[in-house]
């Protein structure tokens, strides 16, 4: 299974085997990783599953789609060039090794 590393605000890291086909958001929620709210359950409605993709793994995810791009302007923590909504990052073998940093808050 692809391995995804989640880095908390306090730099604590956890690497999880996440099943292909699910999302980076669900990978966190299903492994009790705090820091992702995902209030709408992954339906691209709430912008509360914001993550920063580590610069070293920026080439792994698929490009941002227009709706995600618009929603990213409304995250609770500032948008940066490496910002993504983790519900839109579908886990595939191509994501193996992805590192995401969690923001200070989601709402």
């Amino acid at each position, binding site marked *: 299974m692809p391995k995804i590393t989640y880095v908390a605000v306090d730099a604590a890291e956890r690497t999880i085997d996440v099943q292909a086909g*699910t999302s980076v958001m*669900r990978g966190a*929620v*299903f492994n*009790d990783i705090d820091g992702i709210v995902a*209030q*709408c*359950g992954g*339906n*691209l*409605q709430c*912008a509360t599953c914001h993550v920063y993709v580590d610069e070293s793994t920026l080439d792994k995810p698929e490009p941002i789609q227009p*709706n995600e791009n*618009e*929603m990213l*302007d*409304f995250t609770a923590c500032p948008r940066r060039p490496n910002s993504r909504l983790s519900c839109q990052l579908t886990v595939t073998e191509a994501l193996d090794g992805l590192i995401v940093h969690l923001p200070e808050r989601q709402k």
Partner: protein
Amino acid sequence: MAEGAHPDSVVIVGAGQGGYQTAASLREHGYRGRLVLIDAEDELPYEKPPLSKAYLKGEADEAQLWLRPVGYYARQSIELVAGSVTAVDPAARTVRLADGSEYEYGHLVLATGATPRTLGVPGAGLRGVHTLRTAQDAAALRTSLGAARHAVVVGAGFIGLEFAAAARRAGCEVTVVEALDRPLARVVSARTAEHFTRLHRREGSRLVFGQGVAALHGDERGAVAAVELADGARLPADLVLAGIGVIPRTGLAAAAGLRVSGGIVVDARLLTSDPHISAIGDCAAFPQVRSGNRLRLESVQNAVGHAELVAARLTGESRGYRELPWFWSDQFATTVQIAGLDEGHDTEVVLGEDPDAFSVLLFRGGELQAVESVNRPTDHLASRQLLDRGIPLNPAEAAAPGFTLREHLASHRGEPAVPVG
């Protein structure tokens, strides 16, 4: 410390979005007492929105609906109990289950939700006649959709239209029958409703307005075969969905002597008429911040917002509920998002020239009440912030050439938030 905070045990009746969130938020707030989450459905707590969307289309399976994996509840010491609560005894502070077992509570949270209305016409009990509320309902519908050819949807609300879209995508001939003269009459403006009429017709569904259903007729095997309309017309049907609204589950509350009126009556802190019992989500009639009207709202946002407030109160942080309501629905490739609550508007301003991507701003007395956005997510998120922070906007400003919600919000960034209401 807030009155009634830190009870030694919390029992939650109903493990839908609101019940689950109350338990989860209590633990996040550091609550250490006993926590019992009871539901008659023997399922792990799951999300409902996908049931009429991705799940129905076969794009998600049961496990993907779970809010948390099974191990979460044990790790958080949340007792999941599968059982039907038959009585609440407010004097003894106990709830009784159908199997005779009893649970004592320091505080009780009623998150009992709602039950779909069923068609009160002859033939409503035929095989192939469905409602859509639970995972079990959705599983039955998903199976039936595979073999169905003629689907008739009674009621053009969100559930009816979302199901109609899924049935059309599954290759069914679809007819939607609505008693009123337009779809979504309770929830969106006429302009937004008109968009959905066009969308469903363009996708090949038939929409019939101003018509009630008189009867359902079956074949010799007891399966539905036709829907008879009030004017006598018969529509062939091998699958019927009744999407005609829900009835809040207030029976337990009423039997326990709590005030019930169009829902379980709660105050701004979401307390019922008994200080040891809260009610949240679809079943709770609570005062609206702006109007003071006591209303029930049926949405994920409402259930989660209520749950978080009750969890905060039970751990010592009491406040009044003032979260901005928001809703969404996906049908075909269209998303409609609603920010705020339209309790009657006198002025509309439409943003956007594209008939398939626009926002309708609804004003009352010169004040923005709600914004409906069709395929305009930026407008929706900007509206939520504008309404939430009480940033003023009048119809003339909104109608000015070149106006955008996003720029209006940006021009007020950094200003102190103005209390709403």
